[in-house]
């Protein structure tokens, strides 16, 4: 007799929110004429960047070998120190009334087309959102597979039109001090991340506005979040308010905190250990239950063929 064991990430059909309900939610709130009150009473429904949904799946970025991690795990097991330093807090604290819509992002620096733009308008300008399934590897040696919705970063860079002297791009997270749910000083806010311009222009570099075809929840970095799947998760700057094109290599927040442990490049590399643990293998979130085995970590998180060329001739042991 065949007894089918459902994998842990599998949700019953009954758990899915019907699309019509989901799409009508905001319209319904508005039609009730008390949108603001409803939002205040139900802070958990606050979500941002509603433009571009439903998204279209981009088949070029959907590896059938990858099993996406459950929505529940992706949106509950989180490092977002602005809202607490443990994994569980951000989901609670980022939904205590912190508003991520409307949201303005500033694109500035060494570019020909500086602009301040509403996040929804930006998505529309980028031609809407698409869905890509990427591996995510945290520097803490765990991994997920996430269906991100959003647009290629290269499109935004083309819009900004960088000047020849622009060599790096920085991504600033909002300043959390005073925001509802702010958990207190942990890092030097605002959180800053950066990429070399050619890394940022790479096909894989992505700005996420959603997860699993829904607007990205606050705790996951709403409304705009950087996604660079061949790098460790801390490079994925969340809740971006400023994208700045600069000439010199920036010092990212974690590098400033602890340069011995966290570098600028932060490329996933099984051959270069963290000072306190090995990066050769990782725990796969949600796979195999509590006693699931580790899997080997892949060079550049499995994107070696696509990105290795960016680092030709570089000593990756020194540029970790």
């Amino acid at each position, binding site marked *: 007799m065949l007894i089918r064991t459902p994998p842990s990430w599998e949700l019953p059909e009954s758990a899915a929110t019907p699309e019509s309900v989901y799409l009508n939610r905001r319209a319904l709130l508005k039609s009730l004429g008390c949108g603001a009150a409803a939002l205040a009473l139900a802070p958990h429904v606050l979500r941002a960047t509603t433009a571009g949904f439903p998204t279209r799946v981009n088949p070029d970025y959907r590896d059938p070998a990858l099993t996406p991690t459950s929505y529940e795990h992706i949106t*509950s*097991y989180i490092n977002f120190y602005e809202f607490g330093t443990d994994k569980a807090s951000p989901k609670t604290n980022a939904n205590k009334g912190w508003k991520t819509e409307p949201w303005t992002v500033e694109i500035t620096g060494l570019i020909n087309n500086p602009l301040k733009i509403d996040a929804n308008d930006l998505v529309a300008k980028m031609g809407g959102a698409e869905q890509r399934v990427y591996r995510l590897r945290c520097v803490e040696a*765990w991994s997920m597979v996430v269906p991100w919705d959003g647009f290629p970063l290269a499109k935004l860079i083309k819009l900004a039109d960088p000047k020849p002297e622009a060599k790096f791009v920085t991504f600033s997270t909002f300043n959390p001090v005073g925001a509802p749910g702010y958990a207190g000083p*942990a890092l030097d806010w605002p959180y800053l991340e950066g990429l070399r311009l050619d890394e940022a222009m790479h096909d894989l570099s992505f700005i996420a506005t959603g997860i699993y075809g829904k607007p990205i929840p606050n705790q996951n970095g709403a409304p705009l979040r950087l996604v660079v799947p061949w790098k460790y998760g801390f490079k994925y700057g969340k809740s971006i308010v400023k994208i700045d094109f600069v000439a010199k290599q920036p010092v990212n927040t974690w590098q400033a905190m602890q340069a011995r442990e966290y570098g600028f490049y932060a490329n996933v590399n099984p051959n270069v250990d963290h000072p*306190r643990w*090995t990066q050769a293998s990782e725990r796969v979130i949600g796979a195999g239950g509590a006693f699931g*085995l*580790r899997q080997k970590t892949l060079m550049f998180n499995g994107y070696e063929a696509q990105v290795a060329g960016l680092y030709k001739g570089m000593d990756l042991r020194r540029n970790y």
Partner: protein
Amino acid sequence: MPLLAKLLRSKITIWVLLVLPAIWALKPLFAPEPSDADPLKSTLLHLGLIACIVLVTVLTFTPLRVLWPKWGVAQALNRHRRLVGVGAFAYALLHFTAHLLHVYDGGFVTFWKEIQKPFQLIGLGALLILFVLTITSLHAAIRWMGGKAWKNLHRLAYVAAALAAWHQADARKIFPLQVVWIFGPLAVLEIARIWKQRVTASPPRGTTPAQTS
């Protein structure tokens, strides 16, 4: 005798207090919250936290008695030094076991790579000390070693506590204040105890130690 002291005199109370946290520690394995996305890791962290707290707890017993010799609670607690001390080792061992499972990759390659890192060596050092103290915790060991040698050996518990504090602080990316809340009170009690013992160890001139004791 006040009720609390009476309760704490009972071995059953101490057993219950020692075992209850294990239920909390192991819960993620059986009923994980969504934020226990890696349930074994949650359990591992919980067990380590409990081990630190139990170790600190048992080390407060002596200073509490020295500082407040007539306090019933302090007297009651000092009946259970061995049991609680062994409890600290038990939690440390469970923490280590959870770690072994967590890094198990079909073999022990990951374990071997990681155990050489200072962060893990420090924790291992604390565990080894607690192991030695546990196997020498029987009355027979005291007789066999002689009271003085035994006492000196068991002073290693303070080294274990220092290593545990270091290990706990090093486990996070940012210094966790938790370490101060857990180990701080012990440090304060120890300083007070040493101060008091110094004061009483230098009795006024003209009296002999026998008279003052």
